[in-house]
């Protein structure tokens, strides 16, 4: 599987996390596993955990502890009402951006250099 550009990933990480948690609550490592399974193998805990924390600090996520029979209680994240609004905004921005990028990149042969210019 091709590696994604790190800077591009950083830009859409919040959108990915909000989208995942809009469908199902999860704890840090389970979210990393779901992202990897969805086609983002380069996303490790070191990237995902601070992003989750920042989304929680911004009020887009909230956390709660769930006791586990086999181990310690895990910290689960769920999306908040403002998080859903943020997800809608980010999704709209993403579609606008991808449409604009597609408009340019779908006709690469049109982007030729001007002819007849001499030094």
């Amino acid at each position, binding site marked *: 599987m091709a590696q994604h550009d790190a800077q591009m990933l950083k830009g859409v990480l919040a959108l990915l996390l909000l989208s995942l948690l809009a469908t199902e609550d999860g704890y840090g490592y389970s979210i990393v596993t779901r992202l990897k399974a969805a086609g983002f193998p380069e996303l490790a*805990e070191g990237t995902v955990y601070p992003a989750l924390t920042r989304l929680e600090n911004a009020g887009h996520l909230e956390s709660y502890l769930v006791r586990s029979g086999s*181990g310690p209680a895990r*910290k689960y994240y769920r999306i908040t009402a403002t998080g859903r609004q943020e997800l809608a905004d980010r999704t709209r921005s993403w579609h606008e951006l991808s449409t604009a990028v597609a408009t340019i990149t779908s006709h690469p042969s049109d982007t030729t250099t001007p002819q007849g210019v001499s030094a």
Partner: protein
Amino acid sequence: MSTFDTIRRESAVQGFDFWMDYHGVPGRQRRVERRELRAGLDEAAGHGGMRQALRDVGSLRERAEALAEPYSHRPRWAVGAFAAVPVFAALLYGWLFSSIAFVEGVVASGVTGREVRSSDVLPWLGTEFTATVEPGGGGLSVGSGLPWALLVLPLLVFLLVARPWRLVTGRGSRAAAGAH
């Protein structure tokens, strides 16, 4: 899990706790985050080993900084203590060294039968040492005033670094931020 893996994991957890404490994350949340890190590392180690899990977990300092963002207005007691302890240790060393040098000086001077005060020859941040050598060198008594500087200077450093006034100013700025 092997003993070495447990040591590696606990070393990472303690380092993480240090950075959380350093950045002002309160104790109750630190306990939750330590437990979460431990559980996450154990689960990741089950798939690729503890070394890989520790590599994937990335910068724990950055994670601690993210956790501390809501607490940027809290006093930093731990940082204050880290700054004050070396100051106290340096002053204590200086005070002990000064007192020993003073007593050695009095003995070497050969003055006997009267009390010698340090304020004339060795003023040391307001503390006065006294020494009396009995005639014939039969006895030596030594005394000292209370070394206030030993307590006041480290306390001053502690307060300046910990910034306890953030308890008041932080509450005010949070209230103002909440009103907007």
